[in-house]
């Protein structure tokens, strides 16, 4: 684990190597679904699924990793996005709105719910916030389950529309692989810009110490609401993609275990590191999915790993972001003197 962080610091010193390595990896990821190899469809599906979790991880990272608000109900936003798309683009109500519009609408609906959840819990911190969000997540799932006239209860919503791009229908895992890859690139870029902006600095300040942040003039209310909305937006968008890919959704897709899975992957990758999310998702979702015989012990290993991780390496495999930003300012000031 120490090796990984020293590797990443060595890579950041030799930037050309970092870019070369990155370029090769990117090309491999890009052409992966096109080259034939054994069990390709399974790999594409598993990596697409891991990609979906990377997307969700980015959303939760804004809540937990950047702003320091432990959210145990993240699956609720994911589910709200998924149900928004499923209800408005399937035979369930006979409404068929286009996927690309719903991608934004699903995100916005989830963001709105995120803000509505956040307003009453603004005063709560730490474990209290965690339990309230957990309660909210469970209420959402129970509503999906019990509002039978609206969501069809445990039967779920089936026959959800596939996305359509200028007449090309997204059907196979490869199509969704590319869709998810595109969304990951967009949101990694947006989030990394956001982290370096005034908003990102405000979030990090709240994470480090909310009282100090407030005393330093950070409007904690606004920035916490913004963090909740941004994270929930990404979650909702992920839900829309999930619903479109699966073609059918059920309330149990959005249970507490889904929230905890997302939490696990950002903790494993490093709480507060964008690239850690990628490593965490690949480790947690892709690896056990490939090792079928091993899958029975997957949750046991998760559980033990969470404890060991917290004891041995509470900050995850990769360091918190943005180390450069945190160190840069004082050095520049010293040079100025």
């Amino acid at each position, binding site marked *: 684990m120490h090796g990984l962080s020293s590797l990443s610091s060595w890579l950041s010193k030799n930037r050309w190597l970092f870019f070369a390595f990155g370029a090769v990896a990117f090309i491999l990821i890009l052409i992966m679904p096109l080259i034939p190899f054994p069990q390709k469809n399974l790999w594409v599906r598993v990596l697409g699924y891991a990609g979906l979790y990377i997307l969700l991880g980015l959303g939760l990272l804004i809540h937990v990793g950047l702003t320091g608000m432990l959210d145990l109900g993240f699956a609720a936003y994911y589910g709200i996005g998924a149900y928004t798309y499923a209800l408005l683009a399937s035979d369930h109500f006979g409404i068929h709105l286009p996927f690309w519009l719903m991608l934004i609408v699903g995100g916005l609906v989830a963001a709105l719910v995120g803000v509505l959840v956040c307003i009453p819990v603004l005063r709560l911190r*730490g*474990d209290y916030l965690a*339990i309230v969000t957990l309660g909210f997540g469970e209420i959402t799932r129970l509503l999906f389950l019990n509002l039978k006239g609206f969501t069809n209860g445990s039967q779920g919503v089936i026959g959800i529309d596939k996305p359509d791009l200028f007449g090309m229908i997204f059907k196979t895992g490869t199509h969704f692989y590319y869709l998810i890859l595109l969304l990951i690139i967009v949101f990694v870029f947006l989030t990394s810009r956001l982290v370096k902006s005034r908003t990102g600095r405000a979030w990090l300040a709240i994470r480090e110490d909310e009282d100090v942040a407030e005393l330093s003039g950070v409007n904690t209310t606004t920035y916490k609401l913004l963090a909740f909305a941004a994270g929930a937006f990404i979650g909702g968008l992920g839900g829309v993609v999930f619903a479109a890919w699966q073609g059918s959704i059920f309330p149990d897709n959005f249970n507490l275990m889904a929230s905890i899975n997302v939490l696990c992957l950002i903790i494993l990758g490093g709480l507060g590191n964008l690239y850690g999310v990628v490593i965490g998702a690949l480790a947690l979702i892709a690896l056990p999915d490939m090792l079928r015989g091993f899958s029975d*012990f997957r949750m046991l290993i998760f559980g033990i790993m969470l404890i060991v991780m*917290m004891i041995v390496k509470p900050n995850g495999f990769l360091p918190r972001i943005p180390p450069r930003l945190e160190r840069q300012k004082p050095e520049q000031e010293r040079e100025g003197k």
Partner: protein
Amino acid sequence: MPPELKTFIEQLLNGITVGSLYALIALGYTMVYGVLSMVNFAHGDIFMVGAYVGSFTLARFADNGMLQTSPALAVIVTFIAGAFGAALTGVTVERLAYRPLSKASRLATLISAIGASITLQELVRLTPKLGQAVLSIHFGTFNLFPADFVNWGSKMLKDFGGSAARTYPALLGSGGFTIAGIFIPYVRLLIVGLSLLIMVGLYLLVQHTKMGKAMRAVSEDKDTASLMGVNVNQVIRTTFFIGSALAGIAGVMVGFLYLQIRVDMGFVPGIKAFTSAVLGGIGSIPGAVLGGYLLGLAEVLGIQVLPSVYKDVVAFAILILTLIFMPNGLVGGKKRLMKL
């Protein structure tokens, strides 16, 4: 007596029974919160372990045919076994998952607690599988365990854990007595009576023993208590032991009441007991009892108005509303572990 009133009173009795269970589990949450200021997320799963140890014990009684000949003994031994099984689990969880993190952030402790919760559930679920793997360890043709032991072991392992639900024998039967036309089953009477007895015992322990005094001191101020010569780690261990034992007893009660236990049975009662603890004022023992009974009754009253599938939604809504509007609960603040 009009039938509506009769149904209503029966529902109230139901609420009191469930409230007793919530109160027993809530006591564990509140005591741990009192001494460690942390939410023991794995408490619901400790409750589940208690139920499984109880079911294992009952299976041993069934082996000897003693379930029919001496049911009272079986019930008593099952309660004791469930309590000790849960207590040992609680102390182990504290030692392995929480104590190494005593200096870490609250976030780290909470995540570790989530990990402990998952680990306990999965360990119980996988016990037959893991145990079978251990029993079949062999080096070439040499088996680590003799064949007799392997046979015996795999038979024992079948009675503990697994993915499928396990059943409790209906020892307490469907018997009961009738007062003014209202039927009171013995099993509910036992649950309410035993819970009250335990709560009184806990109160006496906390108020009138040296260990109780030490617990109160630690919950007031850990560092000062340590300077006054209180062995803080031992107090924490004892608190986990007692709190988990109560959860284990509640687990066995649930087994006898609903006759079926599952590996994931701890989650919903765990959250509801936590709600009770928060409603009463987390950290306060009388608060946990009050909160438990109030929540039990609120659920029963809630489903008079709403469809019964919304029972859990009522509980979660109470939790969220309490945390938002009354975070100190009914009885009082975080540091009032043992004050009335």
